[in-house]
């Protein structure tokens, strides 16, 4: 769109009619209505607020966020950052937020993969495959999620105790205490290798962009993968080697009541993750199916007539169009998964709701506690929405 194409008369300001102070002037009516509505809403909010404050006062219930700096004293089983019961409520709540994010992020990635596979399977020409996928979707979507979570948790608890733990491979133990895996003892060299890997990805991306620009200019395709492998895999390994190549493995071993060492995936996290992923995948499968079906079969035929290979048709013709249909409902499934993760309380995974509930129980400050929960979910949900909207805008068909 360029301004040159606009009729110059449109650029002139429309003449402004003066406001008449009369009911018959629709603008006056509009203002009056708006003022009344805002005043009403404002009064209701004010009334609720003052009533609350008064009642808290009468009952001498503590208020304010001062409690955040007090010692929490509550035990937390899983934490991504160091945590001790002597830490503050603020830190305990932060641990809760991170636990929520952990299950949400891993859950969204896995649910997308599983959902896409099932969605495509449902379109398969193979009768058995498509019927199994359809059955999965129907069953999973019709059972309450809470029930499914409790089901998975019960299964986890049915595993043998630590002394009879399943030991399929050396160093791997599966018991009702969780899945124990060996883990390297993390050192500076590992952090450096990780950073090198990230740098490698960025450099590869830059190179690919340049290669594409050059291809546009001279029509010569350039191979990207040799450099990509060198940068993304070779560079980190060299870095790690250069720093001494430490490789000390922490093997889990049964000591006393439990396994010590290694890394652990708790039954609570596993049950929640499996429950959320399998449930949400059922919905995502339908979204993916609808997206693919929305692309007219003529597009396939036309693309094939142009001589494009199957993969290229999918990647260049079908997917960009299907994604336009897929992304918006996919976003709401991501939001659902995140919000559904609050069912964690039922099976003892300490997410933000669990920890905020305990905090408000111990401090008695229910309003502050609920406000914190709301703020956290709102922030996470808005971030997901914003990101998905940005992505949606990026992949939207650009009409030229």
């Amino acid at each position, binding site marked *: 769109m360029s301004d040159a194409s606009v009729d110059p008369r449109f650029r002139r300001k429309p003449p402004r009619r003066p406001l008449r102070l009369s009911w018959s002037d629709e603008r006056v009516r509009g203002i009056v209505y708006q003022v009344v509505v805002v005043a009403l809403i404002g009064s209701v909010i004010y009334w609720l607020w003052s009533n609350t404050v008064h009642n808290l006062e009468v009952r001498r219930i503590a208020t304010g966020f001062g409690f955040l700096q007090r010692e929490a004293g509550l035990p937390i089983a899983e934490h991504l950052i160091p945590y001790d019961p002597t830490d503050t409520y603020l830190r305990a709540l932060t641990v809760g937020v991170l636990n929520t994010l952990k299950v949400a992020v891993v859950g969204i990635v896995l649910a997308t993969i599983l959902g896409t596979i099932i969605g495509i399977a449902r379109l398969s020409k193979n009768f058995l495959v498509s019927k199994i996928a359809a059955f999965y979707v129907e069953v999973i979507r019709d059972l309450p999620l809470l029930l499914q979570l409790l089901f998975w948790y019960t299964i986890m608890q049915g595993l043998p105790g630590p002394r009879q733990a399943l030991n399929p491979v050396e160093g791997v133990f599966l018991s009702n205490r969780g899945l124990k895996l060996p883990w390297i003892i993390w050192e500076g060299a590992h952090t450096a290798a990780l950073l090198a890997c990230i740098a490698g990805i960025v450099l590869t991306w830059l190179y690919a962009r340049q290669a594409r620009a050059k291809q546009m200019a001279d029509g010569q395709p350039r191979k990207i993968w040799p450099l990509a492998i060198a940068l993304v895999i070779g560079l980190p390994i060299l870095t790690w080697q250069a720093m001494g190549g430490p490789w000390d493995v922490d093997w889990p071993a049964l000591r006393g009541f439990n396994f010590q060492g290694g890394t652990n995936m708790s039954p609570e996290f596993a049950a929640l993750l499996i429950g959320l992923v399998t449930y949400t995948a059922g919905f995502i499968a339908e979204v993916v199916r609808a997206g693919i079906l929305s692309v007219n079969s003529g597009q396939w035929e036309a693309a094939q007539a142009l001589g494009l290979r199957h993969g290229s048709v999918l990647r260049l013709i079908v997917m960009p169009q299907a994604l336009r249909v897929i992304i918006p409902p996919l976003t709401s499934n991501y939001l659902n998964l995140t919000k559904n993760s609050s069912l964690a309380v039922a099976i003892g995974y300490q997410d933000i709701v669990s920890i905020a509930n305990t905090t408000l*129980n111990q401090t008695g400050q229910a309003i502050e506690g609920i406000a914190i929960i709301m703020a956290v979910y709102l922030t996470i949900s808005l971030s997901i929405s914003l990101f998905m909207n940005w992505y949606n805008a990026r992949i939207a068909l650009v009409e030229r």
Partner: protein
Amino acid sequence: MRPGPAGQGANGRDAVTATRRLNFLRLAGATAITAVLSLPALAQQPAAPSGTTIDAIRARGTLICGVNTGLAGFAQPDSQGVWRGFDADYCRAVAIALFNDASKVRFVPTTAQNRFTALQSGEVDMLSRNTTWTLSRDTSLGFDFTGINFYDGQGFMVKRSLGVNAARDLNGATICVQPGTTTEQNLTDWSRANNIRFQPVVIERLEEVVAAYVAGRCDAYTTDVSGLAATRSAQPRPADHVILPDVISKEPLGPLVRHGDQRFADLVRWVHFGLIGAEEFGITAANVEEATRTDARPEVQRMLGRNGDLGQMLGVDPAWMARIIRGLGNYGEIYARNLEPIGIPRGRNALWTTAGGLQYAPPFR
């Protein structure tokens, strides 16, 4: 070209924004004025006056009593759906004082975690739900504890097959605990003081935390010893579980009400003392009728409402205590009926006057 009012140039857009801003300013100004005007009117609104819990309960016709979600011996629905137990009987005693009718109670099951919000928000009138009296609950949470009807302490239960005999052997163990309890806080205090490391499993609902312990997710389950005994009695094979001898805290349990209504707090408090007092005087469900007529002890006469106006001071019928005892028995009878069958002995909850225990009632005067 996209549809929409894109025909306007930059100037047109600026003008629109400017008008909008002006409108918004006007709107904001008007709102502010309206709000200021409505302030005094609203501020004079009488907020719920204090001291009316009893009136509200009477007007409603039922006492709403927060209890456990189901703990044998304390509060649990029987096969007919009737709540039975020590805590449930305390609710009934207050209902008899107010309505002369033990059935005028609505029992609301509360978890350890949501009980306080239920009481603060007025969803229940009182809690009778093995709740420990602590300083913060008595002050900043906004409650008044009305007495201690069960002196308890925190303990641990393990499976006999685990072969653990003392709490200090639990170093490195996984321990199941309910959130929102003094239990979880005591556990961390205890582990710190004794240098014991443990892995917590924190589950809100009682049945699920017990199920996790039974399934072997945890090596030990910790809560008030009374709760352990109740849970153990409900297991198919109670003898498979042992309650360790160590008691790591004091858990004085009792009913509680909201701050700001002394009359109701007084009533609940004296219902408890009345039950203790009756046992001290040997008044039981069986003999209360006769005692009311013939007992010559002045304090008994005052308590049973034949003399004086103690009932009136509390705002209830003079025969309140006589009726409670006729309906439910005295403290010892309530205890024996509910707690002894599940293997909780009287222990330190015996009367001070006759058995050197901790239960003791102030004078009825």
